[in-house]
């Protein structure tokens, strides 16, 4: 491996994947905006024409990034980050409102979306922070600082409001995970998200039963003390029967959910006495978690009703199958599913999709570009696109792992995480596995800002990778 020769050291496999995806994306945008009257391939008033110009600009950006010295990115990491934060603040003040969110800023005739630029900025800043010399990874201070770096831009973006773009920042948790953040902490985070969704879908009674059964099961598995499990069940069932009986005999007239809550309170009280008088630490933990889980379930309801916007509630409800809404998000989703589903195994062929055109899905060349892939190229084409992404993502993990320089590795994982999140959420939403949050499919979706952001993100990493021999740790 020769030092200093960027062409020799560049990872051409990644570049090739990048180019293939950008070109495929462009063809699909052409098809999505195609009509007999505007068939000109380079009609710059049409979206496909504009995308062509943006691809050219992206390639120029990529070349510029490869030419700039690699130390520049490490050195100016916090500078980039501050710039991104300033732009995010600025957009809230002087931003241009499009589709109900104030997310665009116009500088010298060029429209930029600061939320897109914030992604590379956070990736760099996080890499810089976590690669610090004396940093102890498993410390509260590290967790909090990393949290601030990640979630400050997310918060500012949420104010625009652009929920989809703000959600992306959660994915940096993956980077933190790879760098050694506590698994149980991350697991708890995931468990909370799962419980959040479950508590929206299921009746409270069923959910309470599930949580309690799980609590008892875990108690049995961890303590391996079956007497205690049986005792626990007896206390639970006993207090339930007691309250139920009192209610039944006295004609108190309480609802089932109230009876359950009351009996839980009674049994929790009994457990508390037992736990403290016998000093059962593990059981105390399990009891604590079970109680928190139950509280959480009720809190979710409150948050859902009182904190989320009605449109966010609706979108979540639609994906959970609790509500149908033909005009809004569900309508797009229904259209999207029909378009993809009608593609069959080999698709209808290039430019032959009718569903995507006929039904006029507004975000069809942006967030719903995968519809066009699914309809015109069928299952075979969809799988090819998915495999292209898998190849790119695996290659990125491989590249990240081969870095000797910690900064480069962490940054590599940042790039990987952002691309993975976009890939996962975008395709999942188009095929109905995830709420419609409206984020683009990297390299495929129409739009200059997002294409440039992904290009910047990726090529900084390729530059760092190409220069990896110049570091001696």
């Amino acid at each position, binding site marked *: 491996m020769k030092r200093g020769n960027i062409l020799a050291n560049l990872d051409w496999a990644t570049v090739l994947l990048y180019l293939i995806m950008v070109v495929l994306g462009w063809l699909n945008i052409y098809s999505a905006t195609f*009509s*007999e*009257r505007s068939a000109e391939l380079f009609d710059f008033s049409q979206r496909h024409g504009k995308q062509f110009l943006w691809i050219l600009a992206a390639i120029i950006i990529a070349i510029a990034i490869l030419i700039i010295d690699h130390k520049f990115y490490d050195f100016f990491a916090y500078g980039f980050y501050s710039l991104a934060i300033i732009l995010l603040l600025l957009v809230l003040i002087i931003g241009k409102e499009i589709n109900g969110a104030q997310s665009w800023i116009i500088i010298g005739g060029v429209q930029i979306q600061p939320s897109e630029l914030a992604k590379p900025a956070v990736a760099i800043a996080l890499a810089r922070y976590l690669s610090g010399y004396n940093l102890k990874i498993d410390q509260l201070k590290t967790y909090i600082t990393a949290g601030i770096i990640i979630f400050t831009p997310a918060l500012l973006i949420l104010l625009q409001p652009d929920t989809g773009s703000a959600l992306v920042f959660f994915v940096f948790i*993956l980077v933190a*995970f*790879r*760098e*050694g953040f506590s698994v149980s902490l991350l697991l708890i985070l995931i468990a909370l998200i799962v419980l959040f969704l479950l508590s929206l879908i299921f009746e409270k009674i069923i959910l309470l039963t599930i949580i309690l059964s799980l609590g008892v099961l875990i108690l049995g598995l961890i303590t391996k003390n079956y007497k205690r499990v049986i005792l626990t069940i007896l206390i639970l069932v006993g207090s339930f029967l007691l309250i139920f009986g009192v209610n039944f005999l006295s004609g108190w007239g309480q609802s089932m959910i109230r009876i359950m809550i009351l009996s839980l309170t009674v049994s929790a009280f009994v457990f508390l006495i037992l736990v403290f008088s016998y000093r059962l630490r593990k059981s105390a933990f399990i009891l604590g978690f079970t109680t928190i889980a139950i509280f959480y379930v009720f809190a979710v309801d409150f948050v859902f009703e009182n904190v989320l916007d009605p449109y966010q509630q609706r979108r979540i409800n639609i994906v959970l199958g609790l509500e*149908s809404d*033909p*005009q809004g998000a*569900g*309508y797009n989703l*229904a259209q999207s*599913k*029909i378009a*993809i*589903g*009608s*593609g*069959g*195994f080999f698709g209808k062929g290039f430019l032959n999709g*009718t*569903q995507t*055109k*006929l*039904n*006029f899905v507004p975000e069809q060349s942006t967030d719903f570009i995968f519809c066009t892939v*699914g309809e015109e190229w*069928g*299952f075979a084409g*969809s*799988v090819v696109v*998915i*495999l292209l*992404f*898998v190849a790119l*993502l*695996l290659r990125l*993990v491989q590249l990240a*792992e081969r870095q000797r320089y910690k900064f480069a590795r962490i940054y590599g994982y940042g790039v*990987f995480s952002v691309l*993975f999140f976009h*890939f*996962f959420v975008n*395709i*999942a939403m188009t*095929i109905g*596995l995830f709420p419609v949050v409206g984020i683009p499919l990297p390299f495929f979706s129409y739009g200059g800002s997002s294409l440039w952001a992904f290009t910047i993100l990726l090529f900084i990493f390729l530059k760092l990778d190409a220069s990896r021999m110049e570091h001696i740790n």
Partner: protein
Amino acid sequence: MNPYADRKYIIIILILISAFLFIVKLFLMQVVDDQYKLSAESNSRRDVIIYPARGLVYDRNGAILVSNQAAYDIMVVPRQMVSMDTAEFCEVLGIEKQDFIERINKAKDYSYYAPSVFMKQVSAEISSVFSEKLFLYQGFYLQSRTLRKYPKNIASHVLGYVGEVNKSIVENSDYYVSGDYIGISGIEKTYEDILRGEKGHKYFLVDVHNRITGQWESGKYDEQALLGTDIILTIDNELQEYGEKLMSAFSGSIVAIEPQTGEILSLVSAPSYPPDLLVGRGLSENFKKLAGDTLNPVFNRAVAASYPPGSTFKIINGLIALEEKVLTPYSEYSCNMGYYYRGIHVGCHSHDSPLDFEGAVQNSCNAYFCNVLRNILEDKKFQRTDSAFSNWKTHVESFGFGNRLGTDVSGELKGFVPSTSYYNRYYGSGHWNFLTVLSLSIGQGELGITPLQMANMSATLANRGHYFVPHLIKAFGNDKKIDPKYKEKHSTTIDSTLFELAVNGMDLVVNGAKGSTARIAKMNDIVICGKTGTAENPFGEDHSIFIAFAPKDDPQIAIAVYVENVGFGASWAAPIASLMIEKYLTKELTRSWLESYILNGPQKIKKEEE
């Protein structure tokens, strides 16, 4: 080696699981499940917009003023068209082949894939013939619409009309799409949101022969249309019709208000046009014709024309002077065929002299009110004419002049009351005095008042000092809750006890003995109070004005009548007002001679001119 390097395997597994999940889901959707393919093979979904019937419009007595009639639009989706017998198609629709080609090209310009209107509002006969042959014409289908219908054929300016939305409305709204209808003027515009209802959607599966084969997704995504809400207006259809008849030979307007509520009983702008001219396919052509007419019949003079109020305004000046205590009811001023001061002369007609306030109103003496304005503007309380004038303006504006009243009649003008800065600009601050603005004393000069504001002034006098914003809305269906601003009492800055003097003067105008200016308006058993006016018209014959209310002690109706280019107020406007009052209060007409005088009047003049 990094202690957490093993965690990369979890990340790799995450990627593989996601990809696997997607591939399985796609396999199920695209290969296994053929529900989606069926809908694609059957050529696809058709979104039929269900247009709800617009709300009906009733008058205050429950008579229908606006109803609906069915019509059909022929829609086309260019992409779905196949070769067909164009000659026969054109014959069914009664169009030329060239026309057919143009329409198709227009639809293609709009979109190949989305439906657009091929032909608007075809008749029921054509649509039934067409629907039988629909299977021959792939890509075409019928969309039902409703059009407005006017059973009484009156009140076109009040009702306004409904037309197609324009491009800028479509771009700035998330409700309207190209081809939708919207209220463009009148109450159709003001109460658009209430009248229109909510569009619904029905999604059908359509086969390759253009036939509906069933509901899409078994109707899961269908949306019911919500019917428009009916509205009840304050208009009295008989009075309105009668007013239009009386004005048929004139230009001008009549506005009648129920003083204790501000409800508009009738609002006539002449010349008018039959409202059904502006319906459906003939709309744009007819509108062009109407707008091209020199008398401008689409122009709503009642709210959008402003004229000097003429002598009717003397009452306002008198009340202001009384309120400011620069005039007593018993102060007398003499008049020798007019007012003379430093070489300025304002003429008057011959009448008894001197006169007190009531007598001056009765005789409409110019000299008296020149003195009144002088007293107001040279009031010792104020150091300068400016501040006295500003105070005068405040009083005048409290009658609702110079600003929009906030009515629901669409297209209301503000009118104009000059301000001190207006005169300062022309003459320089301190370089003008009461003589400069003397014409304001008799309601001439810069003043601009709309007929609606005049009627409101009449209602204010009837109420002895307060008014309710004149409005057309009485109820929405069964819901009587209208905008609270119409229930809010607006008091003038004048003490209400002073109004009795003005009302007595107005009584004398109609019912007095010698010198009364509008005895022609007198009724035998009902006491009408009124005031004549003549608005100077620099472009021709003066405008005849009359304001009135009746009965004197329990006013049920207040009215303002403007007749353009016919001269003195008493000659035309006063009898028209009198007939309107009689019609409203007694429901019958006893003075057929007066009626035929009005109906023939201007023609006689024209004949004399010839």
